[in-house]
């Protein structure tokens, strides 16, 4: 598998990838085969890589397996890092590729076939918006949102996590998922609509309780 392509610089990525003290030295030493430097890089980036895997997969065991795979690939490919983008951006893209390869191997339908990106009809946008007494603004805490994301259908979750959480642009997502930019946009919108449904249902349950 080829190394991750260098992502297009984007403000969001830049904001999410501030320089980490000591990172450059650890990279240089790890490229020369220093195991402790590699361990330092792992300590710096394990949380972000694992969180990405967990959000994309929604499964702890798989997320740990792929975190391991991502860092093993890093170990093998760190010599190819050219520094065109922030190291964390490069590593992040490597981890995304690892997850997508895993999903393709599993044969999950959300990859490759655009038609398969479309979940069931009833998951689509609703023209009937429903009761107007419930609005979400100001009411979602982080845990609630994380849980709702976990409950998204896999195809929706992938696009939502990549775009809204991780900050990738639609053209990058389309390239990663082998679908059209329009499809990525459509999936994102449906994902947000589905999240809104999930969050509103949660609110109603809380009110009843």
């Amino acid at each position: 598998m080829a190394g991750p392509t260098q992502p297009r610089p984007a403000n969001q990525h830049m904001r999410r990838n501030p320089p980490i003290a000591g990172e450059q030295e650890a990279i240089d030493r790890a490229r020369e085969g220093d195991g402790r430097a590699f361990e330092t890089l792992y300590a710096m980036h394990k949380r972000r890589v694992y969180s990405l895997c967990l959000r994309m997969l929604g499964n702890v065991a798989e997320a740990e397996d792929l975190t391991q795979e991502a860092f093993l690939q890093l170990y093998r490919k760190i010599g190819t890092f050219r520094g065109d983008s922030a190291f964390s951006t490069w590593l992040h893209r490597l981890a995304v590729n690892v997850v997508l390869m895993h999903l393709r191997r599993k044969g999950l339908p959300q990859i490759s076939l655009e038609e398969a990106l479309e979940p069931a009809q009833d998951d689509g946008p609703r023209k009937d918006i429903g009761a107007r007494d419930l609005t979400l603004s100001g009411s979602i805490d982080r845990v609630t949102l994380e849980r709702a994301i976990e409950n998204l259908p896999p195809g929706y979750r992938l696009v939502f996590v990549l775009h809204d959480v991780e900050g990738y642009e639609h053209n990058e997502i389309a390239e990663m998922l082998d679908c059209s930019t329009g499809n990525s946009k459509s999936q994102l919108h449906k994902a947000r609509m589905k999240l809104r449904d999930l969050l509103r249902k949660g609110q109603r349950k809380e009110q009843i309780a």
Partner: protein
Amino acid sequence: MIVMRAMDKTMTCAEFQDVLPELFEARSDLSGHEHLKSCENCAALVRDLEYIASQARLLLPIHDPSPAVWDNIQQAIRQDKPEPPGTAARK
């Protein structure tokens, strides 16, 4: 074209929601949209979707993998190469 049509105040909720993804992508300020001035349901929808996207951007990496992950990485590296990087440095 889509955006121009979207400014038509006669559009229905279904028509508005059909163009909503493009309006979001265009990063349009929807607060002054003609349809929203007269449709509280669609206005609430737009507020909610904007809120969800804004909250998602604030999510931070909060999960740590178990220590077993690093143990497995070390073991795999050892199997990769007879002399793992750093071994010499530690001696």
